[in-house]
């Protein structure tokens, strides 16, 4: 097992090197390959762990890939690879020549940090990786140097920094209560600790902080600005992966550190899960409503992320095995679907400088592949069968029934109706208006931008039809976590 992980070490060093496209591509590709090679191992033995510098936990820093971590890692590498390929041509048009190496450096940095975040089992490392990807993403939002970008980045930075500090504070609380930083060790020590109030305050702080990171409803205000103003591959990265890190944070804290069946805090735990579930439900509805009234394509997609994150968190906090499997599946579905939508929006900006939805009239005729990819990904976001988004919603609904939460059934269905409104409006403008522009031939984006977009959109379909590739394991993972 240490050997398997030692092979992963090149990632750590990767970001330091001089960055340019082929080099970063190589780095990301190697990393992806290594991560994917772990798939079999984790499935077989459940967990791959490696103790950095040979110290045993709880003293040393441990890296531990459980199923959740592996899922995220695979997603990060897969989607990250696509986005990187896309950026090659795109980024030239949106940022200044001399900043391009910075872009790739930051890209690799955020990539590495997210991987580290997913697989670490040490709370403090958790924090450090979180800070790395947060700071990098502030920089990535601001990279174009536009007025609006700076403003959005600063807003993002303030909220992000406050939430990071809250996480650190919470970690300190936990440390003072348990004297450990290893997640599993904390989890076992919490069972016998005398400092329950401290631990419960820490839990609340954690959840509040990660709610900001994952843009849950009342604290989502930074997201629409930051995601819509960043260069499109960055928007895709932020929406598809970075906010998932907030979700992963909530997940880790709720389940890995505190744990469902932990009696000492169960009432606090349950009420917090309930609060998160309701906040998620509000996110679903309000995010969709806000998306409907937007006229800028990227802001619309960004608000749609708020609503989709709501689905994920609702699924996770339903505390039912099916619901959790659905929530986790929506992580996959949303990562691919949303990345694809942002990439398509990016192609429109790249080719025609179009951001407004009304201006997309008839673009489906000149750019059929791009617009088709958008339509396919939109189907998944709405949850039309057979797409990955449908499978996710199906399981979330199932979870609602398992727990008898009928109010959430209505929320989920209403949410998908609302998302149908904003998605199909765009599809409508692209395909069914603006006819009769004679003499307009095909005018597609370059292949390196088109291919990742198309692959991601086909991916949503693929994971909708062949959901059995993931679902049984997700179900098992959920069952283990909830001890049901």
């Amino acid at each position, binding site marked *: 097992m240490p050997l398997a992980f030692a092979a992963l070490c090149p990632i750590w060093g990767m970001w330091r090197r001089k960055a340019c496209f082929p080099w970063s591509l190589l780095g990301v590709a190697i990393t992806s390959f290594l991560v994917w090679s772990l798939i079999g191992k984790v499935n077989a033995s459940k967990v791959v762990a490696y103790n950095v510098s040979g110290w045993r936990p709880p003293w040393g820093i441990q890296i531990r890939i459980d199923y959740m971590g592996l899922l995220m890692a695979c997603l990060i590498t897969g989607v990250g690879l696509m986005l990187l390929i896309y950026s090659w041509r795109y980024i030239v048009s949106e940022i200044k020549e001399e900043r391009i190496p910075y872009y790739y450096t930051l890209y690799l940095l955020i990539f590495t940090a997210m991987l580290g975040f997913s697989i670490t089992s040490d709370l403090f490392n958790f924090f450090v990786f979180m800070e790395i990807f947060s700071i990098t993403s502030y920089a990535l939002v601001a990279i174009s140097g536009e007025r609006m970008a700076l403003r959005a980045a600063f807003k993002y930075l303030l909220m992000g920094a406050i939430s990071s500090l809250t996480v650190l504070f919470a970690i300190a609380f936990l440390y003072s209560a348990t004297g450990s930083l290893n997640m599993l060790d904390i989890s076992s020590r919490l069972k016998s600790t005398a400092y329950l109030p401290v631990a419960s305050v820490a839990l609340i702080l954690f959840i509040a902080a990660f709610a900001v990171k994952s843009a849950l409803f009342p604290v989502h205000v930074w997201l629409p600005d930051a995601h819509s103003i960043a260069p499109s591959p960055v928007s895709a990265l932020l929406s598809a992966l970075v906010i998932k890190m907030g979700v992963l944070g909530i997940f880790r804290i709720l389940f890995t550190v505190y744990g469902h069946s932990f009696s000492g805090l169960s009432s606090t735990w349950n009420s917090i899960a309930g609060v998160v579930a309701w906040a998620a439900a509000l996110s679903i509805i309000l995010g969709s409503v806000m998306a409907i009234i937007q006229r800028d394509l990227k802001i619309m997609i960004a608000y749609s992320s708020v609503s989709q994150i709501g689905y994920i968190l609702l699924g996770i906090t339903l505390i039912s095995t099916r619901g959790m499997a659905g929530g986790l599946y929506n992580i996959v579905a949303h990562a691919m679907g949303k990345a694809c939508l942002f990439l398509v929006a990016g192609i429109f900006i790249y080719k025609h400088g179009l951001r407004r939805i009304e201006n997309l009239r008839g673009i489906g005729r000149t750019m059929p592949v791009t617009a088709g990819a958008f339509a396919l990904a939109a189907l998944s976001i709405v949850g039309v*069968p057979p797409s990955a988004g449908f499978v996710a919603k199906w399981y979330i609904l199932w979870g609602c029934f398992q727990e008898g939460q009928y109010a959430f059934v209505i929320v989920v269905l209403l949410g998908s109706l609302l998302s149908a409104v904003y998605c199909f409006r765009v599809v409508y403008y692209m395909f069914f208006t603006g006819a009769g522009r004679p003499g307009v031939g095909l005018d597609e984006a370059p292949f390196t931008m088109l291919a990742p977009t198309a692959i991601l959109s086909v991916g949503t379909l693929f994971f909708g039809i062949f959901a059995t590739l993931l679902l049984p394991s997700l*179900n098992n993972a959920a069952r283990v976590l909830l001890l049901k």
Partner: protein
Amino acid sequence: MSKIVHSVLPAIIMAVPWLAIPGAVLWGKKRPGAAKAVYVGCTAATFLLITTMYPRAMDGVVSVQHLVEVAPGINLAFRVDTLGFYFAILLSVIWLLTTVYSLGYIRTRETRYYCFTAINLSFCLGVAFSANMFTLFVFYELMSLFTYPLIIHEETEIARRAGLKYLVYTITAGAVILAALIMQYYYGGTLSFLGHGTLNSETISKPVLLIIFSVYMLGFGVKACIMPLHGWVPDAHPAAPSPTSALLSGVILKVGAFGIIRVLFDVFGIKLLGDLGVALPMLWVASFTIIVASLFAITQNDLKRRLAYSSVAQVSYIILGLFLLSPDGAIGGLLQIAHHAFMKGTLFLCAGIIIHETGKRDIREMNGIGSKLPITMLAFSVAALGMMGTPLTCGFITKWELGLGSIQAHRPYFIAVLLLSALLNAVYFLPIIYIAFFKGDPMDKLLKHETSRTMMVPVIIGAAFVVILGIFVTVPGLPYSLVKIVVKALF
């Protein structure tokens, strides 16, 4: 127990229409002839392939094919029983007629029209062939979405509004069906069609069953235009091009009815529905729809709008027949699927010719149109007589069976509904025939000008079917023989 064979045929059949797309896309601009040939060829090939399944359907053999397991316990799979075959063969015939017709009718955006019609054929077949509620739902939703481009084909303001209304109705209905589906799965444990009901009253409490049933009816009722869920129908039909209207009325409304049939026979089962006591309310809803929609139809002056309201009324015949829960009633209801498809299909195609040749949609302006378009109006009259239930047309057979069914179900008062409906049909169809033939207007008598052959032939065939199905009822291979097998297996 019926025999089961494995067969890849359904999947092949479903794939065939897709072949039309490369043809339409590649040759749509440069060689329209080739594109059309491929398009018609694919539709015809689909029809022929479906006919090869005829012997199995007559023997009650069920062909099954497992495609892919989407999630544990949830499969995409095909299962063609006699009912599915009946529906598939019917829709492929109607599709073939409208396909040929559309060659002459559709003059703009042919590529898009051909592509989406072909795709929809595939999805409709998917609904007919589905082996469980999940597969049915998948194809049903896809079909609903892909019908949208057909409805707004003209891209006029009216078409856009109608399209929007259609989308709102249909997507909401989709979400509602999804809710019902997940309830069925959660409480019943399976979504498969087994030829009998899979829900049972021993393990599931009655209120839950009632909720599942009503949610399903709400969902499918939108497509099957049960009042008051019919709102999109009178807008979508006139806005769509006529071959699409014929498809909407002839097939796509029936897909909603088909969903209800599956819910009735394969989810709940006849016995359970009888125990639940939901049949009578459904009968009243259907009767209400029949009468009120017919009354609405009388007040319409736009020809296609009148036909659309007539469709709303006629589809409820299916519902009426099924929920009589008696063998003859079921025969009547199932027959109505085919009979109405031919009658209303013909009517819409005729309306299309009238609009195409004269540009007139308002019935009051159609004075003497019978002398200008004699064959078209003759076909129109035959189909209209069928709608009224005149003997020797297929409409009569339906009404006869429905009447027998209501006596069998000890609910003879529904015969009154049938009679009243026939009367109302006469009230709104006879004036059209009268205006067309006997209210001469010298201005229009000048030209005797029929339309192109590609549009004429489907209309004539459709009208011929209306008569043939009314006279040679029991000939093997025609709807009656198939329906008989279906119903025998059920009761």
